[in-house]
């Protein structure tokens, strides 16, 4: 594998609240190769969005990155000064945010909001920036006349496409898409996913795609990390995970996902709800909801184990199977 565009090592992010310290992201490590789409899946509150914000150095008090390294194209984001960070944002890592409804400033024209990202990073003139913005809007299928409109004059689907256009104005190396299709109807969802996929291919973009929806990842991701309670519990290639889900949580997520093809089967919910981040269960954090929980799971924390090449899962079931019980380095 060539040098990864993004390399996150042992990232821990906490939020200091009145009720105590909340570990939103707990010793998370992952890599994204150039041109790869990495899907991060998990329920709400699993720490997915915090992972994304940390990449841009956007964790703000009461949140704090307490340990770990984030290398983007070889540069450590945590070591950048405030000014370096400002220049780095959007130029190296751009983001398509969750809830496109609110991603635009309501009192500013769409075209200007695309343009100011450009003028903030280079000496490009405002006219040129506006022109480039109109070109990008056309590329996402929005008539360039809408550059002069305000956000409330666009439909939800159009706004989400405009958000994608805005994310591409500076040709970023890595695109973070945080639940970009949530709150859209299925047709608009499909449009957005296809659009992201085609841009990703054309521009050889690396993408971190964050969602709670495994079905979406099946359409777009090359590799998938499954997050639960602030940790990545399983990681592997799309086909590896789909064919051989090795963590009980991954299997449970798949059972909860309807399938368009194949035999009719009953969808199963996951009993219980995700743990409160300020009071994770001891041992394996999934054990209270796990069908296979053993005595050991209540007290000891499992470490990632190699399932097959570049496919890891953190579960004691794998160790007890013996043969492949080899720890990830």
């Amino acid at each position, binding site marked *: 594998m060539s040098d990864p565009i993004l390399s996150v090592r042992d990232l821990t992010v906490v939020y200091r609240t009145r009720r105590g310290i909340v570990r939103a992201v707990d010793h998370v490590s992952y890599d994204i190769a150039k041109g790869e789409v990495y899907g991060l899946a998990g329920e709400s509150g699993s720490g997915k969005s915090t992972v994304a914000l940390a990449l841009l150095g956007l964790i703000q008090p009461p949140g704090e990155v307490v340990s770990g390294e984030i290398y983007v194209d070889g540069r450590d984001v945590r070591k950048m000064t405030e000014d370096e960070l400002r220049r780095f*944002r959007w130029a190296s890592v751009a983001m398509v945010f969750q809830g496109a409804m609110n991603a635009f400033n309501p*009192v500013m024209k769409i075209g200007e909001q695309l343009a100011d990202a450009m003028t903030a990073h280079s000496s490009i003139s405002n006219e040129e920036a506006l022109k480039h913005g109109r070109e990008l809007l056309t590329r996402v299928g929005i008539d360039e006349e809408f550059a002069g409109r305000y956000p409330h004059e666009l439909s939800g689907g159009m706004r989400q496409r405009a958000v994608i256009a805005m994310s591409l104005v500076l040709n970023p190396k890595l695109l973070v898409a945080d639940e970009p299709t949530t709150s859209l109807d299925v047709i608009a969802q499909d449009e957005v996913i296809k659009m992201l996929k085609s841009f990703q291919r054309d521009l050889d973009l690396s993408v971190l795609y964050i969602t709670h929806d495994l079905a979406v990842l099946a359409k777009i991701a090359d590799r998938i990390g499954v997050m639960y309670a602030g940790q990545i519990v399983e990681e592997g290639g799309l086909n590896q995970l789909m064919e051989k889900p090795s963590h009980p949580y991954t299997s449970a997520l798949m059972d909860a996902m309807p399938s368009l093809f194949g035999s009719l089967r009953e969808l199963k919910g996951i009993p219980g709800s995700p743990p409160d981040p300020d009071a994770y269960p001891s041992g394996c954090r999934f054990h209270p909801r796990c069908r296979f929980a053993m005595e050991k799971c209540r007290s000891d924390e499992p470490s990632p184990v190699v399932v097959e090449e570049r496919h890891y899962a953190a579960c004691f079931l794998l160790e007890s199977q013996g043969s492949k019980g080899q720890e990830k380095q």
Partner: protein
Amino acid sequence: MLLTGTFVAALLIDFTLPRLMPGNPVQTEVTNLIAAGFTLSPEAIKGMYALYGYNPNLPIYVQFYDYIVQLLHGNLGVSYIFFPQSVSYLIAQRLPWTIFLVSIAVAVSWIPGTFIGMFAAGKRNAKFDSIFTPLLNFISSIPNFWLGFLFLIFFAADLKIFPLFGAYSNTVTPGANLAFILSVLHHAILPILSLAIVAMGGYVIHMRNTMVGVMGDDFVLVARAKGLSNRRIVRTYAGANALLPNITMLAISMGAVFGGNILVETIFTYPGIGYLSAVAVSGEDYSLILGIFLIFTIAILVANLMADLLYAWLDPRVSLI
């Protein structure tokens, strides 16, 4: 349409309230004259009622009808206290002073107040918040007339830097000459400060709180992620959006500014509408009270209308139709 409804409702209240006070202006006049040793025949008293155009024996709705008819003819009546001057004349004489005082007070409190609130929220730090927020709360809850008293005692009576009363000194001739203008400014500083300081506290707090709310909105996070400068985020993203509720706040506060202005003008014996209204109320001068209330009502409605127009101009989501 709504404005007209509000206007009529306000007129009705303006009309009824003074008549709920015990006594009536003619009675006050009669009592004064008798106390001064005059003997008045019942015919003379009847004549006085006729002169003022006030008949307490008519039902109040007939009185109101008569009032509206006269109002539509542009007739605000005759003052009892300043007889035989007309109410319109008295108001026309005093109104410019009040407009001068209030508009400057609002301008020097709202504009800086909004900017201070904006930047206070932009540079949120614990020290600033823990000192300034309670201080501003304290300032905004001081009654402005009380502050006026303190100013008067300290700066005018003790230090003698500012005059004690009036709108200009009697040594200058009113007109477009420098001495007069300087005298007017000199006399206006303390009343304006009493009004402005208190009002500003409220504007700063309101703007800051709105800003803190807007800074948590998604589009501000997006602006940060875009690598925009802090200055641009605070002004163009958070500030422009937080400004809108602060305009509404301005319109709402106009009532309080006018109310406070009555007492402030009274304290500084300032020849504006506020002082005139205090005189009118204590002398039970129905016509004058009504005339002044009418002006207050119009002023507040106009302020609200202007706020709405400004809002529609600044917020693309709001259109006038």
